[in-house]
């Protein structure tokens, strides 16, 4: 393998003890990760040829060798499923050396367990990562659907095509999405605005559960979703991957591919100067096409629920000396049909729709998407520079520009043909952000991350009034420290944020343009720890605060929300929302048994929500109930538990439960759209020849079941129909690795809602109009090259 970074040549043949000045008290430490995805490789084995010392990487992928003498060492790094690597290290002082292993193409069937602990951003908060095979099994689904299976995570849907992630009962602006390290700034305030992200760009999807404002600023009250692409390659050659997905429901097809390559930085040293300044350059080109037609419930098609998506991204990296620069551009372009049976003129139409057991729309399949539909184009440009400083410290600066153009087309063309085929609503949001952070070495017991961030944002609307034009300025500064002890890691941080928001709108009484301005500021903090109890047990606990300024829709919206037939009125006097979050979890990792039990309490002061005003406004289409944006003190508490048991080597049983209780103390009532309790079970049989280490197999068969309870804790008013009954869905999966010469084909088949059950989900806002999705059989092919 060419991965051997220093080539193993004796070009730096420093004699043992030549620089013995620090004596034999040096240490060699670092982190061992997957070269492509950046995931840590806990359990990877490192051996020093010179001393015969061996050490296994900890759950974060860290390794440490202590009391070494100065000199040259050969480090042998190995891990199942990865090509073995030998590094020559020239030790003159204590050194931190990160090692990246390249997956061995012969062993792509490796099963990666979701739920590993990561080091970013906080170790004391519960977080779950989807990567490897777990992520592979969600390919072709949208972001929220991909995350839906994670304990404590749900999705709130507007029909089958639009979904938003829900973490511990919170969603929308309360869940922050970081796309390749940049805060996703789209129109996240409405329930029918899905995140504008192509999950195919990511090799890891991480959900941080709990308040995480400390590192990312306002809004992260419920949690954070990190969408992380693989690190750019740093080894020579061109590689890539092709993904093809076909689904029976909606006859959805998705194709995604990437090609990447690099001119390694270090070859110049070994005498190959041929490419001059090109050394250190790396690139990736990625694209996705996704198209689906009308989805089908158990017994009928849902009219106008097709979608078309065309996305691409380009990444360019340049590593020279201490400076590492990365440029990234992505474009996400989607057209999503809105279920025709959801068009409501008034509450009368809505109640009539609820009263019938199936919609009156055409029961036929088509790929055509007609009005009503949404067309969204989201573009992200990011430039990131990292400057390595002595002692493994670094400074990172990230600039990003995002534009989000959202067009919402109503159910009919404008009556006046002179207007053309224009949308009913157009919103254009442009955001510029700049983040600068100073990060000290994670290999030292004490580490520190400190930084500042700034943001400016402008929104321009056209056609209908739903939210006004606005300009938003934000600034923040934070410091986050961590001490890694023998058994206890402690971390804490403080952050200050400032937000300035000026809206530009027409006053309805005077007809003049007014410019109301609001300013919000907040200090947030976090304190947490991770304690290694031994015997495979560890305990984490975290206290955190988070905040969110009122969004522009909560301040200034006025008008009918068409698919909900509700008339929503903002209030300019709203104050910031403040969350106090406590969480703790106990993790166990043993030979046959692995699991996590975690509890959380999230108290939110001045929680912003739509409260039924118990009055109606009559429009020319009929009556619509009025909802006012108001504030209350609410409490979310819950329990997440998961266990994975392997009685024999080939068999794995997994079970997880997500329980939640949400209450509005101001209104003395339950909160609407609180995810019902859920219990998931799965059984997987691993077959086929064992990989070299004896644990991983290349074929598997599995069955799964998800039980979602009836949500009995619903508010007394504000919903049009009672929460639907509990449901129980079965699924099945099978996968294999095929070889054709040196080429590997990773093939899998997944069935969801296997028995084509007719059900409705409480968090699908179209449950008033239609049953949820029926059986869906999905075939996936991944071809790495």
């Amino acid at each position, binding site marked *: 393998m060419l991965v051997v970074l220093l080539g193993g040549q004796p070009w730096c043949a420093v004699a043992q003890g030549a620089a013995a000045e620090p004596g034999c008290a040096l240490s060699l430490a670092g982190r061992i990760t997957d070269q492509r995805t950046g995931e840590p490789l806990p359990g990877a084995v490192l051996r020093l040829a010179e001393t015969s010392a061996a050490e296994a990487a900890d759950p974060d992928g860290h390794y440490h060798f202590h009391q070494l003498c100065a000199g040259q060492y050969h480090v042998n790094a190995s891990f199942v499923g990865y090509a073995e690597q030998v590094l020559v290290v020239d030790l003159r002082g204590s050194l931190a050396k990160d090692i990246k292993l390249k997956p061995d193409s012969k062993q792509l069937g490796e099963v990666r367990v979701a739920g590993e602990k990561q080091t970013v951003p906080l170790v004391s908060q519960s977080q779950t990562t989807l990567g490897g095979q777990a992520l592979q099994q969600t390919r072709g689904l949208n972001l929220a659907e991909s995350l839906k299976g994670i304990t404590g995570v749900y999705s709130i849907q507007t029909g089958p095509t639009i979904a938003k992630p829900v973490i511990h009962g919170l969603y929308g602006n309360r869940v922050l999405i970081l796309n390749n390290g940049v805060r996703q700034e789209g129109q996240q305030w409405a329930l029918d605005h899905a995140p504008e992200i192509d999950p195919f760009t990511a090799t890891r999807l991480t959900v941080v559960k709990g308040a995480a404002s400390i590192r990312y600023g306002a809004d992260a009250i419920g949690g954070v979703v990190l969408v992380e692409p693989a690190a750019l390659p740093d080894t020579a050659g061109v590689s890539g991957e092709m993904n093809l997905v076909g689904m029976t429901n909606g006859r959805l097809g998705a194709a995604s591919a990437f090609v990447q390559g690099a001119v390694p930085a270090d070859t110049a040293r070994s005498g190959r100067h041929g490419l001059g300044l090109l050394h250190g350059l790396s690139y990736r080109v990625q694209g996705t096409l996704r198209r689906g037609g009308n989805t089908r419930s158990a017994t009928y098609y849902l009219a106008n629920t097709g979608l078309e998506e065309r996305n691409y991204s380009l990444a360019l990296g340049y590593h*020279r000396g201490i*400076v590492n620069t990365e440029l990234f551009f992505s474009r996400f372009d989607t057209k999503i049909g809105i279920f025709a049976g959801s*068009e409501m003129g008034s509450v009368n139409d809505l109640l009539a729709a609820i009263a019938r057991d199936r919609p009156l*729309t055409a029961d036929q399949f088509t790929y055509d998407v007609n009005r009503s539909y949404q067309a969204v184009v989201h573009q992200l440009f990011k430039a990131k520079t990292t400057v390595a400083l002595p002692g493994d410290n670094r400074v990172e600066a990230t600039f990003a520009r995002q534009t989000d153009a959202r067009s919402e087309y109503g*159910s009919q063309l*404008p009556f006046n043909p002179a207007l053309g085929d224009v949308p009913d609503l157009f919103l254009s949001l442009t955001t510029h952000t700049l983040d600068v952070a100073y990060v000290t070495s994670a290999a030292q017991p004490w580490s520190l991350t400190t930084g500042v961030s700034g943001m400016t944002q402008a929104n321009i609307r056209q*056609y209908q009034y739903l939210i006004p034009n606005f300009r938003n300025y934000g600034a923040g500064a934070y410091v986050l420290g961590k001490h890694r002890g023998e058994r206890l890691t402690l971390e804490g941080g403080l952050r200050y944020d400032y937000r300035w928001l000026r809206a530009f709108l027409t006053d309805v009484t005077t007809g003049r343009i007014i410019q109301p301005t609001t300013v919000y500021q907040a200090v947030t903090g976090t304190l947490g720890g991770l304690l290694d109890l031994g015997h495979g047990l560890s305990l984490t606990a975290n206290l955190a605060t988070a905040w969110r300024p009122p969004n522009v829709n909560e301040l200034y919206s006025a*008008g009918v929300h068409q698919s909900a037939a509700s008339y929503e009125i903002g209030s300019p006097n709203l104050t910031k929302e403040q969350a106090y979050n406590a969480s703790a979890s106990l993790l166990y990792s043993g030979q046959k048994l692995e699991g996590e039990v975690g509890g959380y309490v999230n108290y939110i002061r001045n929680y912003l929500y739509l409260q039924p005003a118990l009055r109606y406004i009559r429009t*020319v289409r009929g009556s619509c109930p009025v909802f006012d944006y108001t504030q209350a003190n609410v409490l979310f508490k819950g329990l997440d538990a998961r266990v994975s048991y392997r009685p024999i080597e080939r068999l794995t049983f997994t079970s997880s439960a997500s329980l939640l209780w949400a209450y509005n103390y101001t209104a003395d009532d339950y909160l609407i759209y609180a995810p019902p309790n859920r219990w998931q079970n799965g059984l997987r049989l691993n077959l086929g020849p064992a990989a070299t280490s004896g644990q991983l197999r290349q074929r598997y068969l599995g069955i799964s079941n998800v039980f979602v309870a009836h949500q009995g804790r619903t508010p007394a008013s504000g919903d049009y129909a009672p929460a639907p009954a509990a449901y129980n869905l079965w699924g099945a999966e099978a996968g294999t690795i095929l070889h054709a010469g040196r080429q590997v084909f990773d093939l899998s088949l997944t069935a969801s809602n296997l028995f084509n059950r007719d059900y409705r989900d409480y968090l699908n806002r179209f449950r008033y109009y239609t049953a949820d999705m029926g059986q869906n059989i999905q075939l996936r092919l991944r071809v790495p090259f």
Partner: protein
Amino acid sequence: MFSTLRFAPKARFFAGAALLATLGLASCNKDEEVVSPSVENEAVTTMTLTVTNAVSATDTQTATWEQLLDAQGNPVATGPNVSQAKLMLKPNTTYNVTVGLFDKTQTPTFDVGAEIKERANIHSFFFQPLPTTQPLVIPAPTGADTYPLPIPTPIPTGNPLNLMVNRTDLDTNATPLPLGITNTFVTGAASAGYLQVVLRHQPNSKNGTYAPGSTDFDAGFTVKIQ
């Protein structure tokens, strides 16, 4: 990182920083300060009924129901203007009736009715004389919905309004269905009541009944037959 790293020229870093600053400046325009007017593509503010005696072209009258919108596209706080929403008909007479629909938020006023005629295959007008002893064509409001003014909710019980409405125009669906822009009203004995007129939008689902689709416009008129 290796302890033997070379330091790159500082110039590269500063060039990068300059690039960032340049891009940052791109955000300094003020387009958001120009507020576009609120445009409702599917706004309808006004419905007229032009009623002409079938045997006497000079016996004609027009009733108007109007709900104007404010600068944000919402109904003006004063509610609909129903002062002209009334018809005085003669007993046992046939009238030819044309429905007009207009959008007064546009200048000049836009004739929505003409456009609905173009889109006849996905629209349908329904007429409901109230009170009535016949089965309802338009379901009575349920839940918290109400009849459009000036019709009271609930309808006072009393003698039915002796009015029969026949839609006389047809769309071009495979099986042609009535549209309801042109109609005949046939009056019976003297009576008083209300007429509810609803325009339904029924894309790919028009079947002659009221249920499919959603309501585009819902208006009411006082009718006196004497």
